[in-house]
């Protein structure tokens, strides 16, 4: 096996060396050929007609240089400027990576806020937290008495508490629960 491998490597080496030699010889012959062609051309110069320069000059005397518009000036710069293209690609990729990381790595809890909705105060929007608590003790007392008088009042409040619990608004549900407790006393 080792002998086989040795023979194979030797053969490969020989073939590669032969190919390399062929490449060098061909390179040399190509250079030599075109050197002969150039020498031949030098010995046999071609001549443009004597009035050629005058004709060209007369023609260009009457024409103006085309001024490229902004697209022609800017487009080649963008299309052929590889470093700028790579730079832009890297910048865009970085922005994309930052956005992806900030979105996936965000630790903001996904909880529903307790809010009564949006209140428009003049031109600004206020996100007021909802509450059923009465600041005024008189109104609270009247409300509790009304609930006590009506047996369905506590049932309604219980349903309301269950609703707020199901929607995740626990603080509002707690406040209603406290009302129910007070009404039952």
């Amino acid at each position, binding site marked *: 096996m080792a002998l086989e491998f040795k023979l194979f490597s030797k053969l490969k080496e020989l073939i590669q060396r032969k190919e390399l030699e062929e490449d060098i010889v061909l390179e040399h012959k190509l250079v030599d050929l075109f050197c002969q062609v*150039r020498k*031949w051309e030098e010995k046999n110069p071609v001549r443009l007609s004597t009035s050629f320069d005058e004709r060209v000059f007369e023609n260009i005397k009457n024409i103006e240089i085309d001024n490229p518009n902004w697209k022609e000036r800017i487009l080649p710069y963008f299309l052929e400027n590889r470093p700028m293209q790579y730079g832009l690609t890297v910048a865009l990729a970085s922005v994309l990576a930052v956005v992806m990381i900030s979105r996936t790595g965000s630790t903001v809890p996904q909880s529903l806020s307790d809010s009564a909705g949006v209140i428009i105060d003049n031109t600004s929007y206020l996100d007021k937290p909802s509450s059923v608590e009465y600041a005024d003790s008189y109104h609270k007392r009247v409300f509790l008495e009304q609930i006590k008088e009506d047996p369905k009042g506590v049932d309604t409040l219980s349903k309301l508490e269950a609703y707020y619990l199901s929607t995740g608004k626990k603080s509002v549900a707690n406040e209603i629960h406290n009302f129910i407790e007070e009404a039952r006393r």
Partner: protein
Amino acid sequence: MSRNALAKKGMTMREKEIVLLQKIKAGDKTAYMTLVSPYRERLFRKAVSMVKDGDDAEDIVQDALISGYKSIQNFRAEAGVYTWLYRIVVNKSKDLLAKKKRGREKPIDDSQDNQFVDERMGYEKKLELFEESKYLKDKIDALEDIYKEVIELRYFQEMSYSQIAEVLECNIGTVKSRLFKAKEFLKHSILQDNKGEGYFGS
């Protein structure tokens, strides 16, 4: 300012071209003639080799120089004046050949490469090469145009890879790949003739 005057200032060819380009863009038309004058004959020869007619070739070079002047604002100094004009001449020659082919104005005999006869030259111009070089030239002529072209640009016009890419309107990788394939085809073709040992062994 003539080329000699610029040469006296000890400038490189590229620096001279940049100075002349600035003058041309400022409206100096004689500077354009100074810029293109070293390349006229080479361009003419290229055009003749393509269209096989001295008058047509001269018209092509004239048109190319006029087009070049008009669009000088688009010329980028790093491309090299000759490369830029060469591309215009080749494109114009191809256009004329296509027009002729469509109109069947004049059949083109490709086997007459480098054997054009023009009264301005005074004698028959037949490319004289050593036997071995003639054999290689025939092999190159038998290659597909895209490989023939890249061999000519590299070894005859002595252009860099980037200049060839500019002329062929492709990237440098394509140029390298075409050149490699062209040489592989040549080697293969020579070996097929059973000339391998003698040719590559000499």
